[in-house]
């Protein structure tokens, strides 16, 4: 089980926290415990890119900010689609592609937690719920120095929350 990245979106559709556990290489067997969490919460740094061959006309790697926007667009569309089909009570839990799996949890206050993991991972909904209850509420909401709203992610990426999140995710693995 590998966690690739984690995002929080507030009710104004803004990405208020993102964290990427970048990985330099895909382990050949997939079983290697070579997860090296290169921790960084700022949006400027990307996973290291080894040069793409000239022959490979892949679209350029997106910046982490664009990634977050795309993820929000995806979950927003899917959530609406699911509600349309499954009724207003239904909620979207996760989707999986051949390469990764995206887990989704929405709080009653419309804060959205998103986690990207490898495809083998089972349901992470309660993990996201625990992150919300035990980490977000404890270290962000109850922090007297943190503002009520978090424009530009202000107040979320505090030391305690980051540390606890890192430990929690490592503990889950």
């Amino acid at each position, binding site marked *: 089980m590998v966690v690739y990245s984690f995002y929080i979106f507030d009710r104004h559709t803004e990405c208020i926290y993102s964290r990427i556990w970048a990985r330099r290489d895909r382990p050949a067997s997939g079983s290697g415990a070579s997860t090296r969490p290169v921790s960084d919460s700022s949006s400027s740094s990307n996973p290291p890119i080894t040069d793409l061959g000239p022959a490979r006309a892949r679209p350029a790697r997106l910046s982490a900010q664009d990634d977050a926007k795309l993820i929000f667009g995806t979950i927003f*569309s899917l959530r609406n689609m699911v509600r349309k089909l*499954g009724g207003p009570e239904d909620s979207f839990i996760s989707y999986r592609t051949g390469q990764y799996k995206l887990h989704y949890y929405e709080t009653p206050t419309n804060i959205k937690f998103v986690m990207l993991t490898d495809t083998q991972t089972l349901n992470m909904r309660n993990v996201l719920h625990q992150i919300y209850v035990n980490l977000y509420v404890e270290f962000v909401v109850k922090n007297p120095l943190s503002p009520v709203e978090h424009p530009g992610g202000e107040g979320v990426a505090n030391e305690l929350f980051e540390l606890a999140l890192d430990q929690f995710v490592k503990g889950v693995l």
Partner: protein
Amino acid sequence: MVVYALIIINKAGGLIYQRDFAEGLNKLSINDYLVLAGTFHGVHAISTRLNPLHSSTARSSTDSRPEPPSGIEVLETENFRLQCFSTLTGTKFLLFTEPDQPNVDAIIRRIYELYADYVMKNPFYQIEMPIRCEVFDRRLGQYLRPLNSR
């Protein structure tokens, strides 16, 4: 075991087939289904771009073509499970089932087979257009009805 519905989307994102097999999902207007097909088509394309891994294996062997990143394959919600099968030519089969339906892969492959037989081999079918093939409808019903009543 319940299969709720099937949707087929052509490679341009247009809805070409929609059929319900059991109660369980909300009924939408045909316009809403068209919007849904277009939305899913777009989200599917975006989901391929979000791949957090950038496969180093593909880069090491330059002569072999790397496996293209796949879009959404399975979507889970509280009330249903959506399996998406995308053919090599870009046609998408969306199958809505119960959340814990087993063997959806096999079901969707069989549906693809029926599509290949009774739609693509029909001289009156115009490619990429909505599917109106009586034999396809009948065979699909024959295949899915026993599964649903089990």
